[in-house]
Structures are given as C-alpha cells and as structure tokens.
C-alpha cells in the first residue's frame, strides 16, 4: 500500500472513531513511515488530524522509544542493552557495530543508511545478544554475523555514488 493510501485510510478511521485519541500512536507511526521520521510539520499535521494540540502530541512523541523526532537512517538498528544481552556480550556488539558503521550510539551514517540506537529489553532474551533492524530480529549476534547482516542490508539498498 502507498503511504498516501495509508494516510487516507487513517483519516477515515479517525472520522468514525468514538475516541480519535486512541489512534494517536498509529497516526504517529503512519506519518513517521511517510516522512522518514516525525518531522515538525508531521507533528502539526498529526495533531490536527487527531484534534489534539501539537504540545499534547509532542508529549507522546518524545515519550516513546520507537517514535523518532529527529532524522534517522533508512535502517534503524535498536540494539538491546538489558540484562541478558548485557551478560552475553552486548557491549562488544555495540562497540563492533559502532566501529563498522563509524558512528556512536545515537548517530546516523553519512550515507543515511544506518542509525544506531541502544534500547531496553526487546523481549528476545532467548536470542541474546539481539537487535531489531526496522522491526526485524537478529540474534544471537557475533561480529561475523553483524558483518554479513550489514552487507546484506547495504546490498538491498544501493546508494548512488555522487560525483564530486
């Protein structure tokens, strides 16, 4: 489905909802998908759709881990840093990812492909150390498996080389 269609469907849903605010998170997710992240303009658009003030929606947007108020890469890597992943080598995984991508936690690669975000327990302790990339699970991770995962994602999304 095209993002425009998603947005249209959502508008219809809001129209018939008893309590449009129940759809606040869904609206934020949809706009985020549409614009790449929840831009200032998207926040205003979402608030208007829901009949909320921009501040009320901002209160939610800044609260949740999976709503991005700043630009993110095409692939958002959420690396779990909670107890079981910690015990089974989370720090070396995070360090390795940072080194391979050339970014610190919170950063985005220059080509706009990857954003690295540590996150609390993602509920895949049986696959620890684990991470989610755009919602997909990877784990148990090793430096070797990280290399092939990054390679695969890069190959799936070739960035045109710009001439100087």
């Amino acid at each position, binding site marked *: 489905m095209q993002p425009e269609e998603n947005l249209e469907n959502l508008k219809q849903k809001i129209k018939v909802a008893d309590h*449009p605010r129940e759809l606040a998170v869904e609206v934020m997710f949809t706009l985020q998908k549409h614009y790449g992240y929840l831009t200032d303009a998207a926040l205003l658009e979402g608030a208007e759709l829901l009949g909320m003030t921009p501040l009320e929606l901002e209160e*939610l947007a800044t609260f949740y881990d999976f709503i991005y108020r700043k630009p993110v890469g095409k692939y958002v890597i959420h690396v779990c840093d909670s107890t079981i992943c910690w015990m089974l080598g989370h720090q070396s995984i995070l360090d390795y990812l940072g080194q391979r991508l050339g970014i610190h936690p919170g950063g985005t690669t220059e080509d706009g492909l990857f954003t690295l975000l540590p996150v609390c327990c*993602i509920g895949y302790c049986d696959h620890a150390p684990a991470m989610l990339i755009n*919602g997909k699970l990877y784990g148990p991770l090793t430096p070797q498996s990280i290399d092939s995962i990054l390679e695969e994602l890069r190959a799936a999304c070739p960035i045109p080389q710009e001439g100087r």
Partner: protein
Amino acid sequence: MNAARPSLILPDRPPDQVVTLDEYLRLEGYQALSKVLKDYSSQDVTQVVQNSGLRGLGGAGFPTGRKWIFLRNDAPFPRYVIVNTDEMEPGTFKDRVLVYANPHTVIEGLIIAGYTASAEKGFIFIRPAYESSAYRLEKALEEAKGAGFLGKNILGSGYSLDLVVHRSAGRYICGEAKGLIHALEGKRPHPNIEGHLTSQGLWDRPTIVNNAETLAFVPSILRNGAEWFRNLGKRPDAPGNKIYSISGRVNNPGVFELSFGTPLSEIIEEHAGGMCPGYEYKTCLPGGASTRYLSKKNYDIGMDFVSFEKLGHGHRFGTGAVMVFDHKTCLVGATLNLMQFFARESCGFCTPCREGLPYMRELLQLIENGDGKEEYIPILKTMSGQMSNAYCAFAPGAATPVMGLVEDFAEEIQEHISQKKCPFKP
C-alpha cells in the same frame, strides 16, 4: 499432545509454527466460547474461573476470577476488556511466543472475558518489538470474525464484541495496567488513576485488563472444568500450568509450558539443557527484573506464587521468567544494568522513582568502577526501602534486586570496595 504433561496453550512443536484456525478448531478451539454463550451466565463463568485457582500471570498473581467479580452488575456501559501483551520486563518473552504460536487461544479467552464483563469493545495492547505477533493477531481476528466467533451477534447469542490490535510505541510503564489505560487514551502513560479500573478504567468506564497468558488458559478451563485444571499443577496450592521463559547462561534458552510449581532445578537442568559448559550456577532472578536474586540454597524451590510467598524476605514469583546468572558474572554489574533500565524507563511522574532510581544507579556505578565506599551500602538499603513511597509498583519492583544484592550478596560489594575494582574484570 503429551499425556503426562498436557500442553494447553503452547503447541508441542517448534514455537515459530503458528496454530491456524482450522488446527485450533480441531484442538477443540472455540468450543468453550460456544458452550459459555449457550449455557453460562456471567456469574457461572466467573465461578468456574475462580474455582480453577487461575491467577494473573503478568507478574502480580491476583486471582483472575476475583478481578472479574469486581466489575459490578450495575456498572455503567460501555465496558471494555483489554489483553496486556506489552511484556517489557527484562527476561520475559513468554507472551511473545504464545501470541505468535497460538493467537486464537488468547483471542478466545479475551472474548469469554468480554462476555463475562458484557464488554462491547476490546483491545489487544502490544509492544512494537512484537510486530510479527501483532500482524498474526490481526490475521487471527479476521479469521475469528469470518467464522462468526467475533463481531456482531456471536454464534447467534445476541452478544457482540469488537476487538482491535493496539500497537504501542514502546515504553515499559505501558505494561502497568493504569499506565496502559492512559496510553490507550492517547495520553502520556503515567499510572495516575485513582480507584479500580473495574469501575473507572478506559475513558472512565469499567474495564478488565488481563495478561495474555492468563486469558489463554481460560478456554481450556471452561472446556474441562476447574477441578481438572487444578490437578495439572504440582501441588493443590499451585494449580494449572505455567509458561516459564528461561534465559541467560543456559544451553537451551526458551519457553516451556509445565505444571505450575515445577522445581527451578528441573526447569534449568531438564528443560533448559543445564548450564553452559564451563559455567556454574550462581543465582537467578526467578520472575523478571523486579524480583529478588534467589540464593543457591533455594535451587530446588517450586516455581509458583505460594512457594515464593512462603520464602518471604521480599521474594516474589513474578512472571516466571528465569534469568540465570553464572559464577563468572558480576552481580554488581548486573544490578547496575537493571538500574540503568529502570532509571531510564521510569515515567517520571512521581518523585521517589524519578529521583531515587538514578541516585541508586550512580552509587552502583561508583562501586562497579572501584570508587565505592562502605557508607554506600546502608544508603542503597535505605533508598531501596524508600521506593515503597512511589505512586505505583514500578519503583518498589526496581528496588527489589538492589535489596537482594545488598542483603544476600554483600560480599561481592565488599570485594569491589576493598579491591577498588570489579573482581570479575581482569
């Protein structure tokens, strides 16, 4: 199905294979719903569930039947039912596997709860990390609707229920029932609601909130009777089955549906394949991050609510999510990691939690770095005790592993202080 160990809600096969509607129907699925709609009053259902001894399996252990009775007959409409699949407790992943593998049993349980409460709308509240499960649940809702188990005039009974999947955007506090209500209402999910949700829940209306695993057991209880369910447990005071999730330094981490009250040693050694080679068992958090480290001497404890209540000293059974720690893992480091989690996930609404947890985190960080002092130990103890002044159960839960560390593993803290470094680091 294994006769010696009947698996009621988790299919006996790799957990990533989904039970389809056809299969679920072959396993007597939706028969409980059909029986209830035809022959049972709301009171009848509540009575059976109460007799079964089913308790809330999201960690609190409140008797399910009793929660349902709280919803008064003359309570106003509309009423709501919600299944809590937010599950963000570190170490806990049972609901993820359950709702993915067998979505219809959770849905059937939710419809029965809805009928009992005369609810007209229900929500499946799920965290974003479980998107594949959310997708499965949506498909299963469509299937149930297509087969007449959901929607208007279910199976010709006159009862109607609308169910939707509500995707959350990821914060631990949304799993707290009152925080969850605010999250659903599109408000910042602070847990500040006075009174019971059964009278003033979603949009100030009567609301039942149950954990996914709890509801999943309801259909089999109504099909086979309370007595049958009780007898599945290891002891009369540990009725039924339980899904245990095991993680950490074991060979075969995963989820196992076993008789309630199965000994910890059996879960670790037989089901989780024992400790990884070269590692010895030191301790575990028996039921998620907000339970207390269990000493080695309790290695054979029955994994159920009553066994932990008897143990006392702040021990709680929690979610049955066993996190196994080995002799090479530093418990100060582990507790520091837990406090980093809790300090970050605190919603910030009340002062003891917002200010107290980062303070404890800082002290643990100093100790772990080798900069700790003797006087930090009594401060940690006092601060842990103070967390009971917080608004909801989050902060006292967060303090539980700290209290356990200070009281039961004090020698590890002492070593950090006297050696001026973490003794587990080279």
